[in-house]
């Protein structure tokens, strides 16, 4: 298995390429590095550390439950541990681990030198790390969250959890969710635009498909939880009534928003893991995956269906039977895409006489375990059965089969598979087998009996249980199994420790893999690919491109450096070369932005408003500096036209990376606003009168004027864009200025109307929605104003580089158009709906 044979690049070219892509030395370089491999590795290492922390919490819990009426842990500590165990595994391990794999492997797999937004990637990592530490700081403060990872209201609300624990939780997970959202953004754009020439969508590796699918799922699944988190934090901090039934709120609103996030979240964890299996199995079978098209369809279908079955977590809340039948159907449907993937793996292995490496053992363990979890998933999908086993240890067993069997096992498969790529050395197969069998057997010893103990009546989240209900023996066995898993994980740590130092040298392609990451040395050089790869097959290393294909696509990106980080942009569907873009090098801005955001969260936690304001202002300031091009790049930009291979260095307008990122951000924020508006109408339906008794219908004059101002602002930005395309400097300035003034008018009008409302956000859920939706609109318009001003500043101050700024103006327009729409819709809902309903 050799890489596509190309003329060997000159050593001095490679050295120069290396120095351009390498990180600066020392502590500064450590904090400023943005390379996808460094950041991806940090994601994985940090996520694994949190995995260990969550695992230790699990061992404490299992020790407490080993015998009936145990007094090893007091109830409050047990409740804190299961809350942090779930929170850690869901938010700090599974998703960031997938992001780490994606950040490290995806660019290599698609033949790119870097991700599309390296600084954003680094920012995402710092948000993950700081958010995780924020959450764990609750231990130092002695107020550990204890209302479960699902944080049901009212238990998590101000009345029943008055301590700071839930604030740590709400703010911490929101901080961490920022990282998932920016990772999703950059992965979507990178996967769609950075693939090597010839890697059309139908040649994209399944793992990359899975990452693309979950990135879109994150875009639509995480904002509802952020919206719910904002509402709950406001309930706790300023007394809004979103979730307080006594004030027109609803505890079920939280459950809906939580599970609209929570169920897709399960597939966000499973799909990348299944994607790993879809890479490992073909490599060891030494043949391309069977039924590629079906597998890709299954991946996409799972991501979409994941949004249609959140109610199966709420079967016992008293939802009408017809709705239950519908959600049963959607829940059972998921068996088809899961079945397709499993059967495709078996078909790929069928008669292939694979080498049973540890990586493949984990894949085999995945199939055996995940199928059992799927079977119990079908069982709990059936409403009457779920009424018995919901919130029992049966469900605990079920989702651990899915999440350990279907996520953790594949992650281990991925670690054994890609460890040699990342470190240059193979993990020990002997220790690997101990690792696998201890964890695999320990897992089943722990979780198989849980099915039975749940059916026998043991509810979950209990810190103890009485004797005589027939649960003692099974619980003791489970605890023994848990320690066996722990031993297996220790063996893994030992294996990694030993192998990273003295493991066998791997070489570029130890397994004979077919995808592009195996074409480069292990560990890969900082630039990944000296020349762009040419792809003519789903497994490009197994089927060489033809002479013509090489003629057409080869040598566009060369090792001949221009002292800047270049990578190739290709078209979405067919991966035809479009441009060579310049990527930013190292920067401290990501770290500083994360710290500024962190200051805001700490201010919100400690209720120190000045600190929140400092954090906010600092965030805007760092973002502005971040977005301002540095002098060196500016200078280079003036001199260059097209590359040697006649590929442009620019992508204008809607082709630009900027615009694509802005478009994904619009989807994210739009989903956030949609969650608030959805919450509004949910509460309308929950209340008998709207506006409720004691509240007058709002005045319409100011709101109408405000909506008009917002709409006009959008139009002014549209006009500015038309001028910009024609190169007018003053016109853009005037357009942006007009939009800014109109935006300010909107903010003033809404603020004045709120002052005159005659009620406060804490009086009723109606009042809470009235104010908070208004603030959402104001925040959107304010952000659009800042964005527009930044674009105009670049346009006017650096007027000699207007072609280059055009994408920024386009993106600002896009965001302005979106913000205007949000402003108009929000005003229509807040002020119009009470008149109509």
């Amino acid at each position: 298995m050799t890489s596509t044979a190309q003329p060997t690049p000159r050593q001095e070219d490679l050295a120069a390429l290396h120095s351009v892509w390498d990180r600066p030395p020392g502590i500064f370089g450590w904090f400023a590095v943005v390379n996808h491999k460094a950041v991806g590795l940090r994601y994985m290492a940090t996520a694994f550390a949190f995995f260990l922390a969550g695992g230790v919490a699990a061992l404490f819990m299992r020790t407490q439950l080993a015998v009936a009426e145990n007094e090893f842990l007091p109830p409050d500590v047990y409740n804190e541990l299961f809350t942090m165990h779930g929170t850690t595994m869901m938010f700090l391990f599974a998703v960031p681990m997938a992001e780490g794999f994606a950040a490290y492997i995806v660019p290599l797999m698609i033949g790119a030198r870097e991700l599309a937004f390296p600084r954003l990637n680094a920012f995402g990592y710092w948000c993950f790390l700081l958010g995780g530490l924020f959450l764990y700081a609750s231990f130092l403060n002695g107020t550990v969250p204890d209302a479960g990872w699902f944080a049901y209201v009212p238990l998590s609300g101000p009345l029943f959890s008055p301590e700071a624990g839930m604030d740590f939780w709400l703010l911490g997970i929101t901080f961490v969710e920022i990282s998932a959202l920016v990772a999703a953004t950059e992965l979507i754009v990178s996967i769609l635009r950075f693939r090597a020439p010839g890697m059309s969508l139908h040649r994209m590796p399944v793992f990359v498909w899975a990452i693309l699918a979950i990135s879109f799922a994150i875009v639509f699944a995480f904002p509802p939880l952020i919206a719910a988190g904002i509402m709950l934090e406001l309930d706790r901090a300023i007394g809004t009534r979103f979730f307080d039934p006594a004030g027109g709120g609803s505890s079920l609103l939280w459950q809906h928003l939580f599970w609209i996030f929570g169920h897709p979240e399960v597939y966000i964890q499973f799909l990348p893991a299944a994607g790993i299996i879809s890479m490992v199995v073909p490599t060891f079978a030494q043949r391309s995956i069977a039924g590629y098209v079906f597998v890709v369809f299954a991946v996409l279908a799972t991501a979409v269906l994941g949004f249609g079955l959140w109610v199966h977590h709420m079967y016992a809340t008293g939802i009408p039977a017809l709705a239950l039948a519908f959600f049963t159907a959607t829940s059972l449907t998921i068996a088809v895409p899961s079945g397709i993937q499993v059967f495709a793996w078996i078909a790929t292995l069928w008669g292939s006489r694979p080498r049973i490496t540890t990586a493949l053992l984990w894949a085999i363990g995945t199939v055996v375990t995940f199928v059992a979890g799927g079977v119990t998933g079908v069982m709990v999908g059936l409403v009457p059965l779920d009424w018995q086993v919901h919130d029992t240890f049966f469900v605990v067993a079920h989702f651990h089969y899915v999440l350990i069997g279907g996520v953790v096992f594949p992650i281990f498969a991925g670690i054994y598979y890609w460890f040699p790529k990342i470190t240059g050395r193979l993990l020990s197969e002997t220790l690997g087998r101990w690792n696998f069998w201890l964890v695999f057997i320990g897992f089943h010893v722990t979780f198989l009996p849980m099915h039975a103990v749940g059916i026998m009546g043991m509810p979950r989240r209990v810190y103890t249980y009485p004797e005589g209900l027939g649960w003692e023996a099974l619980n003791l066995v489970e605890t023994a199994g848990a320690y066996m898993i722990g031993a297996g994980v220790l063996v893994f740590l030992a294996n990694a420790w030993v192998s990273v130092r003295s493991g066998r040298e791997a070489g570029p392609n130890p397994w004979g893999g077919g995808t592009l990451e195996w074409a480069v040395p292990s560990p890969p050089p900082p630039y990944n690919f000296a020349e762009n790869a040419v792809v003519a097959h789903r497994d490009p290393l197994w089927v060489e491109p033809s002479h013509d294909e090489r003629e057409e696509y080869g040598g566009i990106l060369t090792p001949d450096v221009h002292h800047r980080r270049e990578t190739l942009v290709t078209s979405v569907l067919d991966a035809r070369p479009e441009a060579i873009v310049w990527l930013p090098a190292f920067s401290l801005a990501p770290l500083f932005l994360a710290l500024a955001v962190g200051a805001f969260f700490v201010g919100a936690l400690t209720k120190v408003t000045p600190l929140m304001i400092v954090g906010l202002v600092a965030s805007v300031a760092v973002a502005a500096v971040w977005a301002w091009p540095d002098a060196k790049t500016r200078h280079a930009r003036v001199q260059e036209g097209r590359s040697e291979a006649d590929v442009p260095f620019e992508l204008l307008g809607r082709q630009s990376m900027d615009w694509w990122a802005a478009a994904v951000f619009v989807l994210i924020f739009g989903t956030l606003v949609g969650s608030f508006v959805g919450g509004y109408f949910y509460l309308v339906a929950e209340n008998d009168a709207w506006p409720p008794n004691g509240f007058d219908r709002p005045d319409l004059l100011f709101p109408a004027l405000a909506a008009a101002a917002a709409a006009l602002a959008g139009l002014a930005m549209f006009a500015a864009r038309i001028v910009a395309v024609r190169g007018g400097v003053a016109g853009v300035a005037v357009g942006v200025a007009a939009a800014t003034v109109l935006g300010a008018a909107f903010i003033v009008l809404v603020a004045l109307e709120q002052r005159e409302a005659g009620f406060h956000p804490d009086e009723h859920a109606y009042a809470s929605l009235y104010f908070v939706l208004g603030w959402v609109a104001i925040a959107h318009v304010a952000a659009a104003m800042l964005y527009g001003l930044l674009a105009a500043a670049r346009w006017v101050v650096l007027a000699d580089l207007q072609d280059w700024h055009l994408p920024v103006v386009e993106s600002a327009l896009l965001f302005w158009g979106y913000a205007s729409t949000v402003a108009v819709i929000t005003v229509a809902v807040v002020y119009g709906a009470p008149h109509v309903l």
Partner: protein
Amino acid sequence: MGSRRPHASCRRPALLPLPLLAAASLLLTGCEGVQSALDPQGPRAAEIATMILVTTILGGATWLLVSLLLIAGLIRRPAAVGGGNGRLFILGGGVAFPAVVMVALWAYGGVVLGGQDQPDQEPAVTIEVVGHQWWWEIRYPDLGVVTANEMHIPTGVPVALRLTSDNVVHSFWVPALGGKIDLLPGHTSSLWLQADEPGTFRGQCAEFCGIQHARMAFHVVAHPPEEFEEWAAEQAEPAEDARTEVLQRGQEIFLGSACSYCHTVRGTNASGRLGPDLTHLASRQHIAAGTVPLSRGSLAGWIVDPQGVKPGALMPGSRLSSEELQSLLAYLMSLD
């Protein structure tokens, strides 16, 4: 579907192929069944127990089949499966098979769901359940009965439950009688139950509700209808007057201390609503929401040091002299 249900037996779990370990253990430990979904004592639970059995067998067979296919694929001589890169194999195993099974299961689930929706005769009694942290208030509005943590029902007829909470979310679950339903603040949920034979069935809160979620249990006691009538008539009575000196002393302590702020004893001035109604405390089998069996000793421990029995419980401890405690205990144990 009430009386035609298959008879539930202790042998049932031994048939489970998937949780083999569990089955083995069940054989060893016997079949207590006080809180097991596999030991159904009413029509709802019986149908679901059958469903658990059917789906476990079906699921276990599926699991076995897929695992055997995987092993067969691994040990087979070099070959490609089927034609066209295994397309038929994937479509057959991954699409057709699950699609057929899922449609069948969906229909089965729908039929059972329909049967669980409404009882086939008018409920004999309506019972209101209010979830508290961490105990159950149980009211019979038509019978004038208020009790706690112990629900009495007549056998052979459905009873209707109206459930709510004025605090956090709880979930009412008696596995031997059927599935669970959440108690949501601001909402009233409904559930119907039916026990076929007399007996005592344990239930407990199934939705995490705070520090003592684990000790929020209760019992359902099913009586033949005439016995139930007697029980209800006794419970509807106010507490008997304290006759002896010791009892009067105990009542004095009860009414003069913090007890009466939270507890009601009908027929006295004690009308607190924060804790369980104690009018007929001594008729109950347990205290502290199923935590300990009721006896003079356990009651003493609970009154003096509730935090030792159930850490985090909302009942404060009492400082009583030995004489005061004995009088109070005598009084409380007289409330039958």
